[in-house]
């Protein structure tokens, strides 16, 4: 039987792995699909090509469909997040001069304690403090605002967009003092000798949803079979990726010239959670640096959409209550249940929850029996309660 072609967009990052591996390991072909993978240069490109129907689905920053739902983007057909692809994978990096000041003040760079690191930064940071993030609507933006305000930064830091491949150059040119970016771009800046890593994203929020699989609503409606096949293929790739022994192989495959086109050693750092935090070669191990599956990673909780919506709305002068209602409709727990139930995905009983409430992994009631949800606490104990 001939395979049905689907065109998917991805931005070259380690968390594009589910799309690449679904193709390379044959999960797509098993579902009767042939993936054509189009590398995207900008997040705005992924969004626009998806809107124009040039690509059928996109690897996208989880808050992007929320921003679209709030009217903070171009007028495009409705975009929905049908599953979460990854949690974590981000790192906070600071410039070498700033790192030297932190060291002089006795900071130990444990790469774990977000409060300690935040306070050390507050004491060492210059008056004007700029942080680079990959996109105005990204988990990185939320992590930075949450972390710095909880650490008592009196002034809101200036958060500016810098395309990830240019982060190291922006830091070297003194345009940013710190940045928060997905791997391999933080490691790349360390490798270029311009940055020291201060924290992984998971030290600020234990389970920060990072990328989602985003599709046009009219496509999911018109092509339910294809949508289901696509979701199952990628879900199986996510499951494969969360077997620790597969991560080295994954790093090799995604680093190939036709994908990330980088030395595999660089992608391996984030994927295995063994990061070199400074040009001096200091190593730190973070076992859950990036997760693709275990502990309910892939479920598109409506409460996550609400959390992003509330924060984005406040920053952009919109009504947060209205924003939460709008955004929740774009995280498609219904499609997730419908298409992944038969594949054996664990399905929680509810579709929204308190975000940040789990200090440790916890067993909860699922549609069938029990499932384990990963710890998702914020470092400061903040809990977000969605409005129903």
């Amino acid at each position, binding site marked *: 039987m001939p395979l049905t072609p689907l065109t998917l967009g991805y931005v070259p990052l380690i968390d594009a792995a589910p799309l690449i591996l679904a193709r390379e390991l044959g999960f797509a072909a098993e579902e009767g699909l042939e993936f054509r993978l189009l590398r*995207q*240069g*900008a*997040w*705005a*490109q992924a969004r*626009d*090509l998806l*809107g*124009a129907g*040039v690509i059928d689905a996109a690897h996208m920053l989880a808050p992007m469909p929320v921003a679209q739902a709030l009217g*903070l*983007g*171009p*007028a*495009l057909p409705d975009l929905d997040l049908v599953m979460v692809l990854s949690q974590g994978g981000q790192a906070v990096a600071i410039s070498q001069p700033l790192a030297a000041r932190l060291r002089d003040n006795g900071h130990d760079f444990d790469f774990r304690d977000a409060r300690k690191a935040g306070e050390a930064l507050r004491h060492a940071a210059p008056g004007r403090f700029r942080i680079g993030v*990959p*996109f*105005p609507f990204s988990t990185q933006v939320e992590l930075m605002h949450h972390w710095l305000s909880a650490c008592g930064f009196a002034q809101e830091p200036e958060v*500016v*967009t*810098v*395309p*990830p*491949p*240019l982060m190291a*150059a*922006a830091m070297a*040119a003194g*345009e940013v003092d710190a940045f928060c970016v997905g791997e391999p771009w933080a490691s790349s800046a360390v490798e270029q000798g311009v940055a020291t890593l201060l924290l992984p994203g998971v030290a600020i929020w234990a389970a920060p949803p990072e990328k989602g699989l985003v599709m046009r609503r009219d496509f999911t409606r018109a092509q339910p079979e294809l949508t289901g096949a696509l979701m199952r293929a990628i879900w199986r790739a996510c499951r494969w990726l969360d077997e620790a022994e597969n991560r080295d192989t994954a790093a090799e495959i995604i680093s190939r010239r036709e994908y990330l086109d980088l030395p595999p050693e660089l992608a391996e750092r984030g994927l295995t959670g063994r990061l070199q935090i400074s040009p001096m070669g200091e190593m730190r191990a973070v076992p859950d640096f990036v997760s693709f599956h275990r502990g309910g990673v892939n479920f598109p909780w409506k409460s996550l959409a609400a959390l992003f919506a509330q924060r984005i709305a406040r920053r*952009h002068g919109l009504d947060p209550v209205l924003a939460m209602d709008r955004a929740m409709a774009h995280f498609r727990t219904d499609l997730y249940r419908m298409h992944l139930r038969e594949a054996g995905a664990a399905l929680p009983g509810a579709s929204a929850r308190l975000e940040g409430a789990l200090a440790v992994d916890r067993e909860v009631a699922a549609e069938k029996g029990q499932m384990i949800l990963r710890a998702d606490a914020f470092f400061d104990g903040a809990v977000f309660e969605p409005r129903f």
Partner: protein
Amino acid sequence: MDKRLSIVVIEPDPERAAPIVDGLREIGDHEIRIFSEETGLARHIAECRPDIVLIDLANPSRDILEELALASGPTERPVAMFVDRSDEHLTRAAVEAGISAYVVDGLRPDRIKPVLDAAVARFHMFQRMRAELAATRTALEERKVIDRAKAVLMKARGIDEEAAYALLRKTAMDQGKRVAEIAQQLVLAAGLLSCR
């Protein structure tokens, strides 16, 4: 008489930027600037306050413009996102040409359209030229490899050029491959086998 438009073209490749600028000059007396530097882009744009910014759809710096488009404080000049609802055809054409445009809020569609049309046409032309150039280059390289493969066969089997080519072609047909591919493999193998 409408005032001159200030148009910024963000394009690091001067060979690509030049024809676009030429195309824009043809449609009227507008003030056109080319930015090729990636660093400090946000600052430069804020300083010159353009009416229209044209940029490759795939340029990573687009994400910086997205941020500028959102910044609409009282002193900042909003750069509204283009994707004009009223002209779906033009939007589609721009996406297909690989171009995106950011347009200042309130600029009339009839002033935007000629600029976009000209840019789209030039982007297309450039894409075609680049494709042609790539095709020509590939053809030249393939011919070189085939010549070398023929020489290998002629020497190894004592046959003439015509027979060597016939042999390459027959092998290619039998294997279901292109002559250039077979030639490439033969040249590679000959290189491995020849000891000096």
